């Protein structure tokens, strides 16, 4: 059984072929694209069996890996993205993570480190995909937004908003446990891996973003309530009544 279906995008032949070989050896099913256009072709042709994770180099000969990540998110929202690049400036890392990437790995790296981070990202992505069903089938009303967990998107009136994997996972965790208080520590262990160095403040920042999506007035939250010193509680109309 395959350890996961991966798209590897790397334009440097020695790095690409060694990575492909080693990932295959670890049990992954790997499609290696040597550029932007070829990678997009793989994504388009993957159809009903999308890639679980894409390992993207940023400086590609025929385009940017950042743009490719946006294209992949638009076409295959369930595919988790991990950047593997020589661009290691703080502003570049932030740009990559703001695009919704699960991780950002700077070259040169240890293969074991890469493998561990790929496995962690896949574990999280599978957790998010678990029970999502087909896009549209899993949509729920949360506050003033209709959220489609399988499509990683939300709709607020006529406005369509795409969600990152983590935003989607956090919202789903709170929705699955609606009416109950979920502690920050529990959220951290469910959604983040310790390698990402998250803190309880990381959770608070994500909650702020989700409140902007679901609350009528984010400064006076009625849907995602803070329970002082403990965590958060999602309250739907049923719990309110």
């Amino acid at each position: 059984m395959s350890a996961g279906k991966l798209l590897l995008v790397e334009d440097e032949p020695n790095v690409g072929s060694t990575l492909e070989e080693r990932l295959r050896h670890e049990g992954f099913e790997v499609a290696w694209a040597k550029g932007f256009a070829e990678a997009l072709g793989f994504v388009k042709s993957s159809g009903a069996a999308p890639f679980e994770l894409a390992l993207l180099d940023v400086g590609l000969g025929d385009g940017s890996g950042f743009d490719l990540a946006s294209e992949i998110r638009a076409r295959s929202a369930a595919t988790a993205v991990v950047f593997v690049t020589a661009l290691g400036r703080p502003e570049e890392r932030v740009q990559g993570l703001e695009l919704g990437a699960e991780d950002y790995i700077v070259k040169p790296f240890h293969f074991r480190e890469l493998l561990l981070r790929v496995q962690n990202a896949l574990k999280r992505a599978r957790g998010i995909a678990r029970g999502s069903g087909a896009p549209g089938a899993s949509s729920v009303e949360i506050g003033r937004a209709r959220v489609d967990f399988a499509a990683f998107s939300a709709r607020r009136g006529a406005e369509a908003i795409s969600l990152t994997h983590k935003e989607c996972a956090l919202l789903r965790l709170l929705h699955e446990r609606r009416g109950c208080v979920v502690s920050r520590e529990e959220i951290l262990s469910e959604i983040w891996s310790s390698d990402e160095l998250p803190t309880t403040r990381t959770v608070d920042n994500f909650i702020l973003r989700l409140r902007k999506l679901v609350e009528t007035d984010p400064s006076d939250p009625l849907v995602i309530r803070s329970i002082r010193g403990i965590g958060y509680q999602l309250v739907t109309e049923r719990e309110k009544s």
Partner: protein
Amino acid sequence: MMLLLVGWWGSLLYSQAERIAELEKRVGASPEHVVEARFRARRMIVWESSALFVLLLAAAGAGLWMLFRDSRRTRELEAFFASITHELKTPLTSIRLQTEALADSGEATGRQAELLRRLLEDTGRLEGQVERMLELARLEGGGIVFLREVPVAAWLESALRPWREVHSGRLELEVNVPPNLSIRADAAALDVILRNTLENALKHGASERTKVSISAGRAADGVELTIRDDGAGFPGEPRDLGVLFRKGPSSKGTGIGLYLVTTLMARMGGSAEFDGSTGFRTRLRFSTGEAS
């Protein structure tokens, strides 16, 4: 400023010319001569003031142009430096990947395994040099840091993992950090600081096995992280530590590592302090406030 200088100089000359004309009048010079002398003096003042102004303007322009040319050249050199170092990263990745593949295959034993271990160790050293050059170019070009809450224990566990794997035979790591301690820092900058400190410990440590202790705790105005090794310490002037390109008497390094530690800590709103009297100790102070 330049206009004020020329104006002051012109008005001084003008008042002197007026005083001379007044004196000439008093000693009985003809009124026509006094008028003619005053006209000549004013004309001279206008010409000299204008010439001085143009001269000063030209000098200031030349100075500015040289400053601009130097700054552009510095920027170009920094960009070139950054790009060439960046280009080194890809082949280094390839070398590391392939060497690791050979080492992990289990096919190399005995002498071959030892050679592969050395190759990996030297690849790591080369990676460290490239990272130092890249980070130096970035910081000298005004590079920024992104501060966020970093849990110290989780960061150390992740950052030390490769060191424990690659240098398990030569490096003994002892970590003593409270579980819920966080600092406000840039995680990538922390990795650079840790790498430079550990590489120094290996370079100047005992030939057989170097022991490095890492401890952290709350201090009066923030959090203190101390990295201490049991190596030879630093025999030179303590004030030279952390100064760019300044090395100890026996150091083979580039004189960049500790400068990066000092600069990155300052950018994160903290400070670094070194003590090489017994072994080598790096004390990092993280402020709880905002970075500068």
